[in-house]
């Protein structure tokens, strides 16, 4: 008698194409990343942070409405704003592009890329996910199994990359879009949607570009080693190197050192996309004295940007991405 019950059957069902198989790899990558201890907390934090931002934008919208709870609180409980609030409402009604559009633009500039932002949280999430991207497949030799299936190295890398993008959508792009939507849905007027549309476009452009750059870098770091600890150490090292170089370069003659920090390069890219300098220029043209005020002037100077700055930042980021691609090409292969 046979030791086993042989119940093999042939199949005659459909076989899906390569796009489906890449998507399967992306899904599995995201699932593996979300299984990392603490990852769900990071994702939840991003969304809670987005919710808080939405509440802030709701409050900002309510400032434009007479007799709203927020407006009443400010005018009745805070004497300072008693006379200022009605003037602000009137001015905002006449200049919605500045009062709403520029405020949202500045707000999303800070929300998407500043130190305490969903970018920082996304970098933390990537640091946690890196050992589960390619490193674990290299250490467990699962890369051999992928290679023996109907997917090429390119398909594998593309699937993994899509998986990283899905993770970053959860931690970065999703919360950004949700914040914008919440802010506008809870705004006092529908006109908020088009006044704030540039801020949304800038956010999507910057976050989209950032996701591609960070995704490639994370995959490159993940493919560098088959040791999960070393992979995390490389990522942390890259972040720290960025902070240190940026710090050294900022206060010295060797200002070019700053460009070796991908964080600094991303910030320049963000400043360029959000065109904060342009906003200040428009503000200065309309209210000549305003942008020469102490704090505003400092901010304006700090955010000033030249085409050379942006080109240098783009060149450095491109170099990092090219490095990541070379690492992927060299390392992602069966032993």
């Amino acid at each position, binding site marked *: 008698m046979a030791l*086993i019950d*042989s119940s*093999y059957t042939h199949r005659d069902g459909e076989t899906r194409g390569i796009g489906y198989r890449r998507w399967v*790899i992306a899904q*599995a990558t995201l699932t593996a990343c979300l299984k990392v201890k603490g990852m769900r907390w990071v994702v939840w934090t991003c969304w809670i942070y987005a919710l808080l931002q939405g509440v802030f934008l709701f409050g900002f919208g309510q400032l434009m409405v007479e007799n709203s709870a927020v407006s009443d609180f400010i005018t009745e409980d805070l004497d300072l704003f008693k006379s200022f609030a009605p003037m602000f409402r009137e001015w905002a009604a006449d200049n919605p592009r500045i009062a709403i559009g520029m405020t949202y633009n500045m707000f999303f500039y800070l929300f998407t890329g500043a130190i305490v932002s969903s970018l920082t949280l996304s970098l933390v999430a990537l640091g946690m996910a890196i050992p589960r991207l390619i490193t674990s497949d290299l250490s*467990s*030799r699962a890369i051999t*199994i992928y290679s023996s299936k*109907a997917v090429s190295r390119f398909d594998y890398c593309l699937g993994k990359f899509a998986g990283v993008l899905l993770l970053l959508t959860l931690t970065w792009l999703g919360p950004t879009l949700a914040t914008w939507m919440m802010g506008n849905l809870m705004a006092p007027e529908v006109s908020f949607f088009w006044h704030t549309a540039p801020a949304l476009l800038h956010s999507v452009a910057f976050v989209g570009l950032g996701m591609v750059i960070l995704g490639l870098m994370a995959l490159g770091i993940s493919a560098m080693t088959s040791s999960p600890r070393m992979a995390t150490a490389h990522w942390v090292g890259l972040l720290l190197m960025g902070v240190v170089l940026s710090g050294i370069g900022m206060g010295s003659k060797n200002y070019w050192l700053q460009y070796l920090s991908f964080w600094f390069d991303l910030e320049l890219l963000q400043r360029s996309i959000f065109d904060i300098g342009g906003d200040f220029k428009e503000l200065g043209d309309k209210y000549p004295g305003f942008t020469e005020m102490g704090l505003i002037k400092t901010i304006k100077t700090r955010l000033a940007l030249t085409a050379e700055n942006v080109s240098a930042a783009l060149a450095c980021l491109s170099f990092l991405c090219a490095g990541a691609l070379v690492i992927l090409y060299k390392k992602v292969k069966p032993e």
Partner: protein
Amino acid sequence: MKIRAICVKKWGEVELAPSALPLAWHALYISLTFARMSDAIIECSGVTKLFGDFAALNNVSLSVSPGTIGLLGPNGAGKSTLIKCLLQLHPITMGDARLLGRDVGSEGREIRTRVGYAPEQDCLISGMLGCEYVTYCAQLNGLPFKEARQRAHEMLDFVGMGQERYRAVDTYSTGMKQRVKLAQAIVHDPELVFLDEPTNGLDPRGREQILQLVESLWKQHQISVILSSHLLQDVDRICGEIIIIARGEVLVQDTLKNLKARRAGIAELVVEGEHSRVLEVLHANECTAELESNGHITVRHGRESLTPVLKFLREEGVRPIEALPSPNALEEVFLQALSTHGPD
């Protein structure tokens, strides 16, 4: 009687049943089917694989027909490298190779949808459950999720995995890993499966089960199997054709039957007591016989068949408990091949 061929799905899978189709159609159908059966599943021409200056494969030329094929060779002979080159896991340095009629170099992805592979090393995806892993592998071959999940469970049943399939693969024993590797290799219903040392690390019962499964793949389901192993008894047990490879070169390629025929003049007899009498009878009939340490008698009779030997033994009143024609034939052929052409 009018008959027709139905259900031609795999190599040579033909079921005959009465029908109203003319006999000529039937003849055409059958001839086409058998023409397919005769097609080579693997064709290599001057395949060379270099790692630096070292030639892991040296001008390998092969043509392999469907069936269960044993790939034999000592460690480091190039067995795994040959399989990896055929699956495009390693690029071929020189030469041409075709798998299932397609070019390995340019149609790798298409080939791999029709081929399964269970590597020698552990290659499970950390953190996944056994059933998740096999489902995932099926999806990687293009099966939609629901079908992939269903087939994963069917294949896990097939390889004898019970509730262990709901455990993380990281916690599996060697035997479980071998079963899961086999399940993932056949989950997409391939036409050809490469199994690299599938019985390594298994206990006798587990080994027997895996060998039964592998044997059934061709015999019952017409899935060709390339079994790479250094365990001669495994290959002897289930393979119909043997390829012996050493130092990256193919030394021998022939059917097991032919290889055994080369050693047809040797037999092993198991007798109870009477050893000296049996030896006397054998010597008297122009056979060379010697008593082995395990009590068996090795007879060199030099004949095509063992029947005449058994006949004169019976006439002399000797009845062996067991008579094994060509015992260890494969081992001897293997060692001879190595000593003649192989490593010094």
